[in-house]
């Protein structure tokens, strides 16, 4: 309970800082919409083709947006020289991980909440439905669990902006595949039953990586 409490304090600090600059949310939002627009130029077709392409486009957009926003999570901390200040606080390393993760989760969900309706509008597909929201939340959770760990790792290396994507994409490949498949089914109007096997894969991924990252995080930030 104490851990969660402190983690929320850290997340609150990140969110408050973000409301001042809107650095992450604005750039990620603009980026996401640009990607969608470019995809629209790249694939123009009938409504039917658009529906079959929509899940792929949506998740490519979110995956790239995720990398962009996760990259910032620790860069800000490092640029302010605050990571050590945070590490001096009487909390476990896991708490720092949870806090940073919750902050990133909030930013991602915030961006997605805006991008999804825009996407629905531009592509004329109905992406605002209960199954799709469930898929989005679970997948985003998967992105940030592993992304927060690698973001902390990346910021301590020489080529910090490069490291996160080359680690992140292969590791989250299964979750992107699952999200695309599940979203395709949801858009095709299939029942919960068939979507749930994919949701199961995503949830399993979330749980496994949350647990593993929680435990190995201290090795990433400790010298």
């Amino acid at each position, binding site marked *: 309970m104490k851990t969660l409490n402190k983690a929320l304090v850290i997340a609150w600090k990140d969110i408050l800082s973000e409301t001042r600059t809107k650095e992450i949310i604005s750039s990620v939002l603009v980026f996401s919409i640009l990607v969608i627009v470019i995809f629209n130029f790249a694939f123009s077709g009938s409504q039917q083709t658009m529906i079959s392409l929509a899940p792929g486009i949506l998740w490519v957009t979110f995956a790239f947006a995720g990398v962009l926003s996760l990259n910032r999570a620790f860069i800000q901390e490092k640029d*302010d020289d605050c990571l050590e200040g945070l590490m*001096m606080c009487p909390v476990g390393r896991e708490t720092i991980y949870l806090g940073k993760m919750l902050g990133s989760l909030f930013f991602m969900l915030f961006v997605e909440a805006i991008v999804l309706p825009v996407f629905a509008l531009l592509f004329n597909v109905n992406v605002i439905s209960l199954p799709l929201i469930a898929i989005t939340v679970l997948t985003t959770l998967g992105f940030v669990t592993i992304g927060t760990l690698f973001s902390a790792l990346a910021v301590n290396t020489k080529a910090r902006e490069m490291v996160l994507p080359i680690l992140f994409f292969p590791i989250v490949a299964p979750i992107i595949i699952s999200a695309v498949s599940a979203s395709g089914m949801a858009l095709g109007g299939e029942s919960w039953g068939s979507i749930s096997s994919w949701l199961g894969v995503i949830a399993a991924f979330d749980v496994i990586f949350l647990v593993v990252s929680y435990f190995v995080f201290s090795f990433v930030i400790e010298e």
Partner: protein
Amino acid sequence: MKAAANGLAIEVKNLTKFFDNHPALDGIDLTVEPGKTLAIFGPNGAGKTTLIKILASIMKPSAGEVFINGFDIKHNAEDVRSQIGVVSHQTFLYSNLTAYENLLFYSRMYDVADFKQRIYQVVSMVGMQLRMHDRISTLSRGMQQRLSIARCLIHKPSIILLDEPETGLDQQAISMLWGALKEDGVKKRTIVFTSHSLERGLNACDKLIILNKGKIAHLQPSKGLDLAGLEKAYGICTGAGNENAE
């Protein structure tokens, strides 16, 4: 707060830290009694900052043991951290948040009771009441450093670690720093600091060490030692005369 078994505030046994097969600290043995002030001198790269970071439990030793108020930094890191305050040349303040928000954040992290009152208290201690609701990024370096002192004191730590705190501080702020450390209603506050200035360091400490190449080259109480004597000892220890002032 649990009392230390042997009554020592800081106890370091055979502390060693390797970087790339190269010892940054090499078999350090050190004790500091509660309420005493220890000065650490030494040229750049002697291991001063590494030692401070290990005492603050943000860096892990490669070998050896460290006890802070009787707590082992390996197994009771959180207890250790709650009793330590650090001021270094980095301020550890978030530039997009205001001074008040920064202090609020840290007081929550350290579980400070009555935090509103305590924040006003530490802010007035460093004379920053008027700029309390300004963003850190709009404040000068010296003001940020003063707030960093307030941040360090917010949880009433019994041990203070200062790593070159005088970098970026003006004369007035320096005396404010020492004043704030002494006031603040905590008896027997233990202070460990590193310094380039032999003169100021000598006046403030009860005991001093000179680090060179990761080893303690000189250890003695400061009583009866004058500046000339210290300069001579420093020159012998570092083998480079007194050319440390950068």
